[in-house]
């Protein structure tokens, strides 16, 4: 009945290793297929699962390896076509997937909207209607307070400024239209409008770029623990996470895949990634794990490089330092309770200015210093909270992307020499979209602006 296709993350945030993006609506298959590379999802049987890679068709960039469940109407939860995309990579990747499908035609679902559709399409019976309404109310209230919390004060100020620029421009065009006889209001020119639109577009663009960093803040700084086998990486993970999730044994090569954990270190959110010890190996499973570790190292924002103080620095250690060269890194010399074989001067030299911390994870020594070093890197380093304005809410990002498109349309129309009152349609749209981000009511404010900015009347 409602034609548009909605999408949302349908696993609770932060729970479970697998996260699902769910699409529902007439276009669900088409949209999923558009970004899915291995198979034609529109042709597969209903209620099957397909393995494949998501690719952004505009940039050809690989986004994620996923499993997609295809379920065709009417035997689905909403009685509409549904595609569920399962991603393994935690919150960051599931967010990326969501944004991808939003970019290619889906609309972010309102709170409780899947259930609402299920009901409206007759899937849920009457006795449950009350529950549906409850759900909508409570989810909306929660989503609203959440969105508000995620709204950084600087961000809303910035958006407000952009909107002010836009509305002054729009009011100017409007006043030329509604009061053509007034000669004391100069005509808005194509050049001026273009300049303003371009300005706002630049800002929106910057915001979208920082959106990536915004995610870092919310989802945690990607922090990879790397090191040779058996140096104590999993032990470090467990200590920082106050948890025994990673298996610790004396057998080198215990950890064979990437393990993720969200932790908070002195107010800094980390997405800790324990990796398989990196070494040349013949074991197939371990080989894949090692490959993933290298990948993790590349995606990470911060590296914790663990060394064993009980043995001298090896070529493998030096290779790891080399791999982490351009990244924020902290070197950790572990097992200080044992006999020190490592030459600390050598370590400092290869660390090239990165902090070097000594620990005994078994005796829980040096943990404070390590935590402090992590916090310092974050607050003094490149990921500085103070300078950047973050956008992290998916809805906000979608609105910004739409605003960006509307501005593109406006600029293109100007290029084509369209009259200003048509160009202005897209400018007004941008203004409305930005307004939705900060939850501002749009109805009367344009008219208010018109009469406060210009002197009109008989």
């Amino acid at each position, binding site marked *: 009945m409602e034609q548009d296709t909605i999408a949302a993350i349908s696993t609770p945030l932060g729970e479970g290793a697998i996260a699902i993006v769910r699409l529902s609506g007439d276009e669900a298959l088409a949209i999923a297929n558009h970004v899915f590379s291995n198979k034609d999802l529109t042709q597969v049987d209903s209620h099957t699962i397909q393995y494949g890679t998501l690719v952004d068709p505009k940039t050809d960039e690989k986004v994620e390896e996923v499993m997609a469940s295809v379920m065709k109407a009417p035997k689905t939860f909403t009685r509409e076509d549904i595609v569920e995309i399962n991603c393994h990579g935690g919150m960051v990747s599931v967010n990326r997937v969501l944004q991808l499908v939003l970019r290619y035609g889906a609309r972010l679902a*309102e709170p409780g909207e899947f259930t609402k559709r299920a009901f409206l399409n007759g899937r849920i019976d009457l006795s449950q*209607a009350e529950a549906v309404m409850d759900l909508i109310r409570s989810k909306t209230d929660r989503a609203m307070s959440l969105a508000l919390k995620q709204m950084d004060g600087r961000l809303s100020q910035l958006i407000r400024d952009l909107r002010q620029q836009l509305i002054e421009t729009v009011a100017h065009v409007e006043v030329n239209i509604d009061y053509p006889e007034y000669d*004391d209001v100069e005509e808005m020119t194509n050049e001026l409008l273009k300049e303003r639109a371009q300005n706002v577009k630049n800002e929106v663009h910057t915001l979208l770029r920082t959106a990536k960093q915004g995610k870092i803040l919310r989802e945690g700084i990607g922090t990879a623990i790397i090191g040779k086998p058996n140096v104590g990486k999993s032990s470090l993970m467990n200590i920082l996470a106050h948890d025994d999730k990673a298996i610790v044994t004396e057998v080198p090569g215990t950890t064979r895949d990437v393990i993720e954990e969200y932790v908070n270190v002195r107010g800094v959110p980390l997405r800790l990634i324990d990796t398989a010890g990196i070494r040349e190996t013949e074991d197939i499973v371990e080989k894949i794990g090692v490959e993933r570790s290298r990948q993790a190292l590349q995606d990470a924002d911060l590296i914790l490089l663990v060394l064993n103080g009980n043995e001298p620095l090896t070529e493998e250690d030096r290779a790891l330092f080399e791999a982490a060269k351009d990244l924020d890194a902290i070197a950790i010399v572990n097992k200080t309770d044992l006999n020190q074989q490592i030459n600390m001067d050598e370590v400092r030299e290869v660390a090239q200015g990165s902090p070097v911390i000594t620990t005994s994870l078994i005796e829980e020594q040096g943990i404070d210093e390590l935590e402090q070093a992590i916090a310092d890197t974050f607050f003094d380093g490149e990921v500085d909270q103070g300078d950047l304005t973050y956008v992290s809410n998916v809805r906000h990002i979608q609105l910004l992307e739409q605003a960006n498109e509307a501005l593109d349309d406006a600029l293109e129309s100007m290029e084509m*020499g369209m009259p200003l009152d048509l160009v202005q349609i897209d400018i007004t749209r941008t203004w409305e979209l930005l307004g939705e981000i900060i939850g501002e009511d749009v109805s009367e404010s344009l008219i208010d602006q018109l009469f406060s900015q210009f*002197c009109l*009347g008989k």
Partner: protein
Amino acid sequence: MYEAGRYDVIVIGAGHAGVEAGLAAAKRGAKTLMLTLNLDLIAFMPCNPSVGGPAKGVVVREIDALGGQMGKTIDKTHIQMRLLNTSKGPAVRALRAQADKVLYQQEMKRVLENQENLTLRQGMVEELLVEDGAVKGVKTETKACYYADQVIVTTGTFMRGKVLIGDIEYQSGPNNQRPTITLSEQLDDLGFDIVRFKTGTPMRVNSHSIDYSKTEIQPGDEVPRAFSYETTEYILDQIPCWLTYTGEVTHQIIDDNLAKSAMYSGAERGTGPRYCPSIEDKIVRFNDKPRHQVFLEPEGRQTDEVYVQGLSTSLPEYVQKEMLETVPGLENAEIMRAGYAIEYDAVVPTQLWPTLETKKVDGLFTAGQINGTSGYEEAAGQGLMAGVNAAAKALDKETLILDRSQAYIGVMIDDLVTKGTDEPYRLLTSRAEYRLLLRHDNADLRLTDIGYDMELIPDERHERFNHKQELIEAEIKRLSEVRLKPTDDVQQTIQDKGGSPLKDGVLAVDLLRRPEMTYETIVQLAPRDHELPVEVEEQVEIQVKYEGYIKKSNQQVDKMRKMENKKIPENLDYDDVDNLATEARERLKRVRPLSVGQASRVSGVNPADVSILLVYLEQGKHAKVAANE
């Protein structure tokens, strides 16, 4: 008291709203009575002697496409006409005419007199006859009782009107007509929410006392123009307006006397419109402006009165005089009528259904300034709609509600009944979210069929309209089939227009889409074998050139319509809908929207409330099905 007759519809007032209401009701076949204070002042213009302008001019065309009168009358009685915004896009072009005020009234009166089913009578209505929440008729001052189950009140600024000039104030309608007191009090007693609004008008001066040499001439267009799609005779002999300016000295005088202005003396006053500020407002709010425009507009061919647009004021008469002395060209101007402000009662319009019937009193309709609007065109548009709907109710015919994508009239009424207004409401193009669809050039395409269905458009006109539509379609089809080859001739023409040469053959429509191309050029390249009327050519050009934008707007309209089509029963008990936010519930109870779409526009209702409402309504439907099984 005596029994004076029974009618289907009674219209109180013969201003701009009343006239259209009476005509529309009578044309639909309702036996209609119009009562008004003074038969010599029918469709009187108490302010600007002008009709149209951006948005408003489009409304006049909409009225015309719906079979109304305003366009036809102004076409016959104007002293000059101009097409505005010609340098801008088609969506915002509009006509404005300066009216011969007196002729306009006379012409309107003649039209009313000749309308079948319509009785015109002078008289002041003193009381509405209301029984059990339904209107039964009206009683006049002279004790005549007229009966009808449908009554339309269009009493304008007369409701407890009060004129203000400096420290002088007295109860009065506009231009020293008698105010309407008892009717206004009765509405109060019936439980209607009433607001107090105000507006003002500038002085009129004698043309002989103006030194026009110090002003700039503002002529009408040389091309003949008309509002009505039926007009065939044009007025070519036009009279110019003139432009002059206030200056620093003028502003000083106003500033010095501010405390003497009725509106600035500190007394509590009704709310005035921001878009028509008095000169006092302009000086106070924009004190950095060194000068303000003053347009001198003749009020007609047979009078020397000139309307001084830009100097609306409620300063004392002697200050008005001092002010004029500082304006170039007006140094010796003789004031014939002083400017004044007027305060009046208006009904809070959220108390109305979109048909303009009041929710409180069955069969009672209100239209025009009484609904919180300002402007002749706004009044006329509402009058027509109220007339159509009152007749529909009387004769058990189809009612008419226009939506926001169909007409500015629809935008206005939806705004009024859904959001209300806290100042006198005027139409602006920016109030319409689909203004590209609500153009001045396509009002007939949007509304003639509807006017025909409502019996307001005669057969002959409808046939002509159908023919026009066929011509447009045929020509667009032709251009979509003609392929232009990159011949020397074609390349040369394109180059002359500043376009880049063709690489390949191209369809004529696609070439027309290029910004530098006009229909005229395309026809040179792709000649047709028959002549086409200019309006048809214009439509072809607009529809082709702006197709992309029009499509985009249409998609938005489709979305809106989906919500508009989900109906809400008139008597829905919102207390029964759990989970609505308290504020939303209160607002919805007051407005009682007729569709989910309308509900979503009520301020304070957010998307979650709309979802909850949808689920609730669906639940009702399921319940009904269950009960029937």
